[in-house]
């Protein structure tokens, strides 16, 4: 395997004046999971749509499984699977009929399409619901069916665009387990998410996207090490005094304290956390700043995002180029 399963170079795509994807380089070796992490509107969905031939790029190049996404689009579609942000399954068909339809459209032939459908029903624990119309399915079941549909054609490269958004925690955890199993089969996976924990759990390699650009990449550990050691989080009783608190404890840690003003919190990267704890309390006490909460934790990707961008991931724009022309309102509604 001389070439990575996914390679993009200088990928660009604009919607009018908005540069949704603005020079993105990505690489995912075959059989690995690439997590594309970023807030809403960062450009994640646009990247997925380009890589799955739904959109053409304005510039740069992208190859998936050796196929150019523009020149070899037709051939590429035979070796990829896509599960988008909304479960793209037909409500008026049963679970089995949905899978069978996708199998037919991959040209598997009648018998093979049927066999694959059964396999997927089994694998995604939908056998009991196989003959019910999807209208009666829960959100988690629809997602599992959608994931099954994306795997019908035995894709070499699978794209999952925010596979667990809108699911309750239990459905999310069970979907994570299913996704982890896929990778064991050797499928290359590109997964977008705004759940930092999700990328942490599933991805081998993470690209952090913001404003259409890759602002950081590496393994989870590499990204975490950019924050440096553990994190000491101090929440002050009086939010207005958060900067004062940051000044009081500056110099104690292995890096500069980061202030999250809205939360009234200061987080300080520390190398030997427990030893510093006492000193932090002493300093804040001396400065007369009242502490409402104090915790020491391993950094999460939230912390990484904060360290990289100076803001929390969730605080980013709620809408943007990820939702071109009228798609923002696309509902996962059951029936009007």
């Amino acid at each position, binding site marked *: 395997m001389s070439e990575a399963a996914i390679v993009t170079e200088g990928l660009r795509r604009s919607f009018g004046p908005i540069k949704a994807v603005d020079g993105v380089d990505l690489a995912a070796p075959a059989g690995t999971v690439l997590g594309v992490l970023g807030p809403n509107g960062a450009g994640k969905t646009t990247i997925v749509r380009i890589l799955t031939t*739904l959109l053409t790029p304005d510039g740069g190049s992208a190859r998936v499984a050796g196929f150019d996404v523009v020149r070899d689009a037709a*051939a590429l579609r035979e070796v990829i699977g896509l599960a988008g942000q909304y479960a*793209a399954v*037909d409500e008026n068909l049963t679970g089995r009929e949905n899978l069978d339809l996708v199998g037919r459209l*991959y*040209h598997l032939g009648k018998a093979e399409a049927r066999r694959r459908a059964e396999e997927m029903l089994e694998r995604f624990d939908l056998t009991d619901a196989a003959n019910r119309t999807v209208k009666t399915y829960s959100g988690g079941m629809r997602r599992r069916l959608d994931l099954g549909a994306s795997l019908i*054609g035995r894709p070499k490269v699978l794209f999952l665009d925010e596979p667990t958004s809108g699911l309750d925690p239990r459905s999310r955890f069970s979907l994570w387990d299913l996704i982890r199993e896929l990778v064991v089969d050797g499928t290359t996976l590109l997964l977008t998410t705004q759940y930092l924990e999700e990328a942490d759990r599933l991805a081998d390699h993470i690209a952090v996207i913001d404003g259409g650009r890759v602002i950081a990449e590496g393994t989870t550990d590499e990204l975490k090490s950019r924050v440096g050691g553990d994190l000491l989080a101090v929440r002050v009783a009086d939010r207005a005094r958060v900067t004062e608190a940051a000044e009081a404890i500056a110099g104690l840690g292995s890096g500069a304290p980061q202030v999250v003003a809205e939360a009234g919190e200061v987080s300080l990267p520390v190398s030997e956390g427990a030893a510093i704890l006492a000193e932090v309390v002493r300093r804040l006490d001396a400065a007369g700043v009242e502490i409402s909460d104090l915790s020491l934790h391993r950094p999460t990707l939230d912390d990484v995002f904060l360290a990289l961008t100076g803001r929390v991931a969730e605080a980013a724009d709620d809408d943007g180029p990820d939702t071109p022309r009228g*798609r923002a309102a*696309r509902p996962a509604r059951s029936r009007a």
Partner: protein
Amino acid sequence: MSSVANRALPRRPLWWTVSDAAAVTKRNLYRYIRVPTLLLFSTIQPVMFVLLFTYVFGGAIQVPGVDSYIDYLMAGILAQTVIFGSTQTGVGLAEDLSRGMVDRFRSLPMARSAVLAGRTVSDTVRNLFVVSLMLVVGTLVGFRFHAGVVPALGAVGLALAFGLAFSWISALIGLSVGDVESAQAAGFVWVFPLVFASSAFVPVESMPGWLQVFVKANPVTITVNALRALTLGGPTARPVLQSLAWIVGILLVFVPLAVNRYRRAAG
């Protein structure tokens, strides 16, 4: 790996284009089995039109040379029914687009025309069902085919073909507006003048001169005239050929436009 990828790919069998469209048609038709009320309501409207026109206007409208208005009316109602039915093509596609189904289909190695062909064909099948039921109701209130069995079948076939052509126009509209409500509205506004400013319900001669210019060129008039010849009798060759020419013309223009729009849907 890359050398394999760069190799020229074998041509996709033409058969796939047909089987893909058939798979999508089947999927669309399931909807009427699973939601029978949909079919019920799309059937009620044309049946209601038959009854309303017959009993409300039938007494007032005298058509020279035709004994009963229902015989005159049926050709017009046939055309109206298939055209109104075809507006649902755009609505169905807009729905697939807004629910992410089009994204899924476009990411599959299926024929680019299959989603549209499947939709227009399934809407034609639905039109066949509605037209058949309408003819039954028409017959109950006094309509008769006067030109024989073959012209009668020809009339049904021509009406369905005309509806199919309009389905492709509707497909382009549905894909262009992108959401269900707009598709519903945009799909209907332009067909009203076409259907009513035609020979569908009243003789063209009863209209003001300036309107007659439009009405006589209107493909609905031409098709209704052909359907009338096929149901009532009279020379059929000229109106039928003219209507077929319109159908072929519409398809030649709108099939490529709609497929092209589909390729870049939501782009």
